[in-house]
């Protein structure tokens, strides 16, 4: 009985977990609270926590001043498009790495992941020039492709770890049963990997949604997503903390809600299949 968990112990765990959770969540909570304050209250010293005049003024100003829906649409298209495209490309790639590995498969995986270790700004210049040359600066399709490429290593790596858990004999059985490669991936592999694919989709949607470096540098108006929407309120002159907070809240709200409803999948995704 050495490992028995007493109820006291459980309560303690709960308290600690909630404390850490709240600590991490605090900046977001603060942002949300600030979005309901007046500009003066937002910078009040000492700061006010809950007891201020709640107002929706910031939201109406922000909605009036910028076209939230356009930014939102761009975010959905860019994050969704790049994620879907990425998974379409990554499924066959991960299939081959997991089920017909060569001697170099491990090296290739590591090399792919190593591209994530390069600071993005290192390739900003060439990519920026490329976009100009191709005439795709501030273009949604271009951003879909670029963000897809940025996140592809992670998508492949995640799918690879999920696929590795699937016994190869089942795929061989499908082959014996007359399945073509397409049938095998479509009717056997994919349905078996649905939980893994779902968490991969989700995690990458969030990564793409939050991606700010490329979206800020490669867009101006037409393709600008919510990250640009937030950035437009962080001006060095003037005090617009409350409005900035309102814009931020509006930008993160969709993803926050999505994350809330898919916690389970997310945890699985973030632990890279280590937890079953």
């Amino acid at each position: 009985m050495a490992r028995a968990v007493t109820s006291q112990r459980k309560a303690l765990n709960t308290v600690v977990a909630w404390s850490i959770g709240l600590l991490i969540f605090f900046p977001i909570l603060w942002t949300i609270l600030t979005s309901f304050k007046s500009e003066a209250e937002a910078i009040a010293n000492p700061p006010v926590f809950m007891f201020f005049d709640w107002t929706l003024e910031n939201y109406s100003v922000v909605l009036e001043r910028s076209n939230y829906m356009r930014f939102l649409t761009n975010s959905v298209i860019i994050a969704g498009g790049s994620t879907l495209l990425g998974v379409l490309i990554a499924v066959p790639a991960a299939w081959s790495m997991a089920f017909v590995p060569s001697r170099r498969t491990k090296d290739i995986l590591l090399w792919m992941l190593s591209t994530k270790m390069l600071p993005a700004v290192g390739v900003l210049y060439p990519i920026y020039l490329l976009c100009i040359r191709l005439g795709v600066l501030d273009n949604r399709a271009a951003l879909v492709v670029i963000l897809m490429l940025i996140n592809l290593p992670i998508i492949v790596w995640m799918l690879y770890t999920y696929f590795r858990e699937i016994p190869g004999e089942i795929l061989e059985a499908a082959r014996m049963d007359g399945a073509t490669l397409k049938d095998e991936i479509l009717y056997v592999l994919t349905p078996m990997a649905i939980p893994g694919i779902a968490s991969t989709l989700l995690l990458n949607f969030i990564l793409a949604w939050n991606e700010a470096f490329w979206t800020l540098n490669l867009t101006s108006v037409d393709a600008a997503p919510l990250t640009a929407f937030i950035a437009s309120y962080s001006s060095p002159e003037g005090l617009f903390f409350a409005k900035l907070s309102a814009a931020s809240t509006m930008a993160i709200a969709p993803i926050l809600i999505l994350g809330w409803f898919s916690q389970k999948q997310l945890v699985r995704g973030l632990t890279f299949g280590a937890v079953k």
Partner: protein
Amino acid sequence: MGRIQLKQVKKAFGDVVVIPPLDLEIVDGEFVVFVGPSGCGKSTLLRLIAGLEDTTSGVIEIDGEDATALPPAKRRLAMVFQSYALYPHMTVRKNIAFPLRMAKMDQAEQDRRIEAAAKALNLTDYLHRRPGQLSGGQRQRVAIGRAIVREPAAFLFDEPLSNLDAALRVGMRMEISELHKKLKTTMVYVTHDQVEAMTMADKIVVLQAGVIEQVGSPLDLYHTPRNKFVAGFIGSPRMNLVEGTEAAKHNATTIGVRPEHIDISTTEGLWQGTVGVAEHLGSDTFLHVHGVPGCDPVTVRIAGDVALNHGDTVHLTPRADQIHKFDAQGLRIS
């Protein structure tokens, strides 16, 4: 039809040659069993036939047609895996239907075949279940059902019973044998259980390190093993292999006598020894006798129960007409 011919088929993984060039003919309708010690290449050979592994060189013909380069799906062979390899996300019905769906068979015919297979395999009540909700024996039956609905040219089995408990194994062994009698389709069956091999096979292929040691009917192998390896491998308990002066008396390097071909007496006999372990099974008694020169221990099988135990002195006499003689290379001297 299901005639399979291997011509100089070789398989190497990298530099490691697992199967040196090998010839084998499997006649249509035959039940062929591959046996051999672990790691000898039984599964590899079966997977070569299935098309799940590429041959390094050589030709595989199915019904006279070169199938060496055909993908598994095109070889008209069905395989039953040791792990069953059922599709966990599909119901039993969908599992069995999968090969028919891949063949784009019309729905009515699919249903007819599934019902027939389910009835034959006692699966009718389980068609709506997932594999996860079945016992090991039932899963095995689903795997067989999935194989038979296609009416393949031949069935390939890779140790299909090794995950089942002993009682179930005997039952399934009979079911597969009966299935073969009924369907008369070629079956290639891999096992390391020589009882399975002896009871099910029309023809046994004994493999060692990727080399075919002997091909023959179970009783051929039992009565006239071609070499020492086959002699020791086929039969249970193992044949006693005696070397030295006793063998020299027969002008051989080694002589072999099966445990059931040794007469025992407490008073007189050719060899004298002491009982080490005595195994009383009721139907039979196995004695492991120490002290016979050139073979230790000598195993003796006596029908029925005999009152001999550890420490008893016994005299053994091999039956003269049941002695197998082998030369220095281990080959049979006839």
